[in-house]
């Protein structure tokens, strides 16, 4: 890719992950996040060159649900603004693209999702082929379980490997004040749990989460003005695969591999990786596709198994990487986001600190 302007994450904010926020609507969840974000960056909305969000009307059960979310931003005077009906990670991609034009230096990206008001499993069924699949109402967990079985059948991966992913996620989440599920869990105990949608156990699946997340991107010198240690986006790319599970090799993620190549994952040592793997087995598939070795600290935040605000969960992976780079805990990080049944669409970003 010939985009050449250096763009960095310079500030991030997120709401705590909550199972069900019965008090606040989406605007009220988002507003403190955006305030926190702009305060951290020392910027007001008028300093922001471009604003873009990612959300899904169907989560809220209302057409144009994203429209009122703008009220949380305070779009006055009128702003240069856009919205994708995709995870916030793709909104960030659009912002990164927009900053490449060169006429503006800052962008605000936000994303919100309340998964609690509706039946998220049923809502996501409507992502599927409306002719052949929706009439059967297979849900997201079923699609993931088919993939998990294919993986378990294929080679050395065992149910123990899946449980280990879960145990590590819960353990890592202990250090994440925003995470929903955390704690020390024993792999043996996990394996004794009953199967939920076999071969998946309940803990192999993500929790239902309400939450919001936001970041500010800045270009070049402007990034250094905002923060001493920007998290530079050295590469970012995303790819999609065919929709039908039946035509894909479910044990692999070629779109992740391709995006990783384009983003330059292999061009240096990776310290940490935040992978948007809502199901435990998907972390294993993604780790392979990204070419990450055992020396890489995967999902130090606990990942999507610990909290999964649908539509924000991908953006949160970028945030968790950026936070660790900005704080100096890591120098090179790989963030990943996914969309669609059984990892149909994947985005990969490489973030780096100044050496």
């Amino acid at each position, binding site marked *: 890719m010939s985009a050449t302007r250096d763009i960095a994450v310079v500030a991030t904010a997120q709401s705590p992950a909550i199972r069900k926020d019965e008090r606040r609507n989406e605007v009220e969840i988002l507003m403190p996040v955006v305030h926190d974000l702009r305060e951290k960056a020392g910027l007001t909305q008028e300093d922001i060159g471009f604003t873009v969000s990612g959300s899904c009307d169907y989560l809220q*059960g209302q057409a144009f649900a994203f429209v009122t979310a703008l009220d949380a931003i305070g779009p006055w005077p009128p702003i240069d603004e856009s919205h994708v009906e995709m995870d916030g990670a793709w909104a960030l991609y659009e912002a990164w693209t927009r900053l490449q034009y060169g006429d503006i230096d800052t962008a605000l990206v936000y994303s919100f999702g309340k998964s609690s008001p509706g039946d998220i*499993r*049923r809502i996501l069924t409507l992502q599927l082929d*409306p*002719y*052949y*699949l929706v*009439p*059967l*109402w*297979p*849900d997201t967990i*079923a699609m993931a*379980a*088919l*993939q*998990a*079985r*294919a993986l378990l*059948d294929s080679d050395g991966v065992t149910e123990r490997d899946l449980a280990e992913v879960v145990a590590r996620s819960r353990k890592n989440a202990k250090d994440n004040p925003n995470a929903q599920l955390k704690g020390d869990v024993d792999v043996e105990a996990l394996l004794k749990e009953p*199967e*939920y*949608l*076999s*071969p*998946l156990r309940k803990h192999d699946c993500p929790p239902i989460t309400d939450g919001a997340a936001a970041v500010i991107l800045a270009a070049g010198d402007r990034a250094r003005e905002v923060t001493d240690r920007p998290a530079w986006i050295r590469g970012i790319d995303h790819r999609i695969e*065919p*929709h*039908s*599970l*039946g*035509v894909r090799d*479910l044990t692999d993620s070629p779109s992740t591999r391709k995006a990783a190549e384009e983003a330059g994952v292999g061009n240096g040592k990776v310290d940490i990786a935040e992978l948007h793997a809502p199901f435990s087995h998907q972390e294993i598939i993604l780790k392979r596709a990204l070419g990450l070795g055992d020396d890489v600290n995967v999902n130090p935040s606990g990942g999507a198994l610990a909290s999964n605000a649908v539509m924000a969960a991908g953006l949160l992976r970028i945030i968790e990487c950026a936070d660790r780079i900005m704080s100096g805990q890591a120098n090179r990080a790989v963030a990943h986001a996914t969309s669609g049944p059984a990892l149909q669409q994947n985005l990969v970003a490489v973030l780096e600190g100044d050496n």
Partner: protein
Amino acid sequence: MEYTYTRSVGPVIERFFAGLGEHRMQGIKGSDGKVIVPPVEYDPFTGETLTEFVDVGDAGTVTTWAWVTDPRPGQPLDKPFAWALVKLDGADTGMLHAVDAGDQSKMSTGMRVRVRWTDDNVPDMGSIACFEPEAG
């Protein structure tokens, strides 16, 4: 929120549904010659328009499966069942549907299953009740 959508299906899906009404399974030849079931309008990898229908069997092999203990509203069966990808005889891809196996212990990857047809001849997915183990 409740609404009944009226979907026009286009020529490929229309032909597949019509076949189901006659208890006939059909696939379509992809750009690489592989037979895709259920038939898709466009090649999943090259985007080419596909037109060459191929009859396939109504029995095949389970390539992967998942066991459902608590069926949800609208799913093909209201008792425990398996979701499965089934590669029908003569097909090269898996088709998603339910397998009525009675018990999880009856399910295995590679097992043979056959369509259980219904008398529903509305041109839609309803002609297939589910799959069932071939030997059983």
